[in-house]
């Protein structure tokens, strides 16, 4: 089972890597690069929300921390892009550990409120501070090479996806997180330390998000508090993951591609009705929660498992 997935994954990545050879239109390459970025944002959000059961309403903050850290280090300290990117990821991961340590001890809505507040506070901070450029934001040195950014984004997201797959689906870590999601007190009796596992999960969610933010900043060459620290980054990642299917990696990836394709089509052809976009986004989340509580992928998995007979004793592969 795992070998089949591995082979499929490798073929899929190779197919993606050949895209720039076939697509020479900069607009389409840009759209595909951004779609890959949203896959990364949706799956990382799902680590803490879907697998661990803690809603993070400030996911965009980690994207913004990565973007700003990369921009500041490149512009003010003249760090090379690669190093600044790693620093952006570490800054996000550290922030998650710092925010998670007190708030993930508690069950309930505290974590959701704290992450939302963090995102709003950071946005205000970026608006008033000098070294972030305030409301004017920051410009990065233009490096106008769409192929480079396509491959940079693809590399980061593929490594993230593969790393999460190994940790969450292959290694026992994912099972432990799900146990905490299902019943924290019960998990504790079985030798799991929930606080420690939740913080690890949160850092695992935030660190790659920061790196993705860093790539985005250098790619787009201009960031401001609204574009990288606003609500929309979180909101879209949430809708993509919920629509695709929480607690899986494939679901949020599918959700990201479908919703981003819709968004692009909408903005390209129906831009007179821009205000409708957020309304539709809201309707999609409401409808998918009511009619597809398991998301698209979760519903497909359920349908498949209800059709297939029970696996045999010796089939030690994943059944989910």
């Amino acid at each position, binding site marked *: 089972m795992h070998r089949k997935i591995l082979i499929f994954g490798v073929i899929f990545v190779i197919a993606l890597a050949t895209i720039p050879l076939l697509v020479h239109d900069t607009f389409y390459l840009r759209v595909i690069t951004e779609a890959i970025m949203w896959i990364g944002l949706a799956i990382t959000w799902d680590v803490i929300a879907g697998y661990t059961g803690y809603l993070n309403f400030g996911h965009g903050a980690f994207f913004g921390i990565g973007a700003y850290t990369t921009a500041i280090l490149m512009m003010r300290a003249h760090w090379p892009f690669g190093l600044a990117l790693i620093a952006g990821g570490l800054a996000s991961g550290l922030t998650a550990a710092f925010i998670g340590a007190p708030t993930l001890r508690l069950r309930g809505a505290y974590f959701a409120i704290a992450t939302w507040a963090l995102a709003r506070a950071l946005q205000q901070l970026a608006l008033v501070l000098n070294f972030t450029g305030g409301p004017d934001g920051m410009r990065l040195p233009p490096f106008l090479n769409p192929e480079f950014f396509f491959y940079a984004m693809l590399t980061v997201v593929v490594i993230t996806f593969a790393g999460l797959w190994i940790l969450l689906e*292959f*290694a*026992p870590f994912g*099972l*432990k997180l*799900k*146990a905490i*999601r*299902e*019943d924290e*007190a*019960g*998990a*504790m*009796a*079985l*030798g*799991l*330390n*929930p606080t420690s596992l939740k913080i690890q999960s949160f850092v695992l969610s935030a660190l790659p998000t920061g790196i993705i933010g860093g790539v985005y900043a250098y790619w787009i060459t201009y960031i401001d508090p609204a574009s990288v620290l606003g609500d929309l980054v979180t909101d879209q990642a949430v809708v993509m993951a919920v629509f695709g299917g929480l*607690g899986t990696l494939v679901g949020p990836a599918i959700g990201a591609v479908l919703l981003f394709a819709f968004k692009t089509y909408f903005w390209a052809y129906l831009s007179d009705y821009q205000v409708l976009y957020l309304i539709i986004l809201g309707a999609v989340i409401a409808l998918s929660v009511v009619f597809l509580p398991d998301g698209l992928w979760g519903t497909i998995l359920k349908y498949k498992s209800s059709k297939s007979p*029970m*696996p045999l*004793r010796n089939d*030690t592969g994943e*059944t989910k």
Partner: protein
Amino acid sequence: MNSKPTVLNIDSVTKDFGGLRAVDDVSFKIRQGEIVGLIGPNGAGKTTLFNIISGYYPPTKGKIVFKGNNISGLSPFKLAKLGIGRTFQIVKPFAGLTVLENVMVASLLRYPKKKEAEEHSWKILEFTGLADRAYMQAAGLTLAGRKRLEISKALALEPSLLLLDEVVAGLNPAEAAKTVELIFKLKEDEGITILIVEHIMRVIMSISDRIVVLNYGRKIAEGKPEAIAQDPIVIQAYLGEED
């Protein structure tokens, strides 16, 4: 009377919730290989005492000594590592996971590799009679199945002391008999020391080597089942006072 070493020593344990004294200066010992029954009317403090022993509440006063170490106030996951397994009166299955995955979570404590944890879980499920439902979602189990899953998860920890909180109550007579048989097997085959809370007198009387009776948080009696059944203080606690 019994020369076996003491596994658990509950030493003058008191627990207050605000002004309410839920457990009041309770002391007793459990020796290796024993099954000790803990009984008492509703609200006597049995589950509270369980939660103190398994680390969910720290005691207000007194201490708990497990195999010579003071464990009062240690967190549940540390106690699980030391060898204390427990079940919950209100069962806590991981509803969205399969029965096998439920047990694997516990098996990972002693078998950190997933493959070995899975092998171990199969052994546990065969022992507890849930192997045929291994790929079922835990949410789909009957109450009897869920109680059995609770025991399976606690057993997968390979505990030396097992705390069973009402694993028989609510089952029909056939299921209850099977669970009682399972508990005997744990004692005889696995040599696990057991502290069990149970409401069904017939079960607790037949299963226990010794019984401790709580009422209003205090220990009012301790002894062999036959002696407890005759004890006027115990009868009074259950049936009320005669005018």
